[in-house]
């Protein structure tokens, strides 16, 4: 892929992800919000591909779009929310929330305007994405990897305990 095509693809995916994120937080129907979040996740996965993070893109599609979003949709369908479309979308304080969001965006934008210093060539070896990630994950980061597994186990047990129907209570 030439640089110009890649840059054009990045601009398209950046614009599409910002648009779908805005739609996701403003739609009245929660299911529509979920579908826009799906569009956001897919476009972010595309940006991961452009950033040479192929494994992260695959995990983004499989875990985020495939598992987490389906989980949200299941819970949304399980709960009966008939009056969701009648109730106000935002709380009364939404202008304050918008101001906080804009302030944060402005701050972060100012922080990133300064050009970053570049790494001198040859210092870091070129990334062979999947191989390097795998070697680091199961070598240097083996302990955090196991702890992440423990966190997921604790979350599964916690979710079961929280959501189970308590008999005789």
């Amino acid at each position, binding site marked *: 892929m030439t640089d110009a095509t890649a840059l054009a693809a990045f601009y398209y995916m950046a614009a599409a*992800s910002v648009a779908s994120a805005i739609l996701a937080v403003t739609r009245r129907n929660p299911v529509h919000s979920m579908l826009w979040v799906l569009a956001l996740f897919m476009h972010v996965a595309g940006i991961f591909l452009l950033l040479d993070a192929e494994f992260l893109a695959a995990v983004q599609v499989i875990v985020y779009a495939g598992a*987490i979003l389906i989980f949200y949709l299941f819970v*949304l369908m399980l709960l009966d929310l008939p009056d969701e479309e009648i109730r106000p979308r935002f709380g009364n304080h939404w202008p304050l929330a918008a101001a906080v969001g804009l302030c944060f965006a402005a701050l972060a934008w100012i922080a990133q305007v300064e050009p970053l210093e570049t790494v001198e060539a040859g210092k870091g070896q070129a990334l062979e994405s999947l191989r390097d990630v795998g070697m680091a994950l199961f070598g240097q980061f083996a302990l955090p990897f196991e702890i992440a597994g423990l*966190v997921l186990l604790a979350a599964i047990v916690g979710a079961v305990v929280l959501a189970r129907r308590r008999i005789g209570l």
Partner: protein
Amino acid sequence: MIVPMNMVLGLSAVLFAIGVFGFLARRNIILMLVSVEVMLNAVNLSLAGFSQHLENPRGQILALFVIAVAAAEVGVGLGLVIALNRNKPGAGVSDLTKLKW
């Protein structure tokens, strides 16, 4: 490097701000959790960008851990939503002002 790092960071900042707005403004607890997902995605984006910029896979590893913790957070969060829904139907946070009912 094809994609300029500053553009990635700017996009990440904008997405994070949208997530902050959604979390503060929405009154539906499920959509608040979804806004948190948007924020986490913005952070992952900047981590992947730094990983490419510094030619170091650690950014991607950290993003993977963020995804794992996000999955755990969703499990516990939605379990709480279901438990709350059993006591009092609806998903509006304005209804959940009492700890006991």
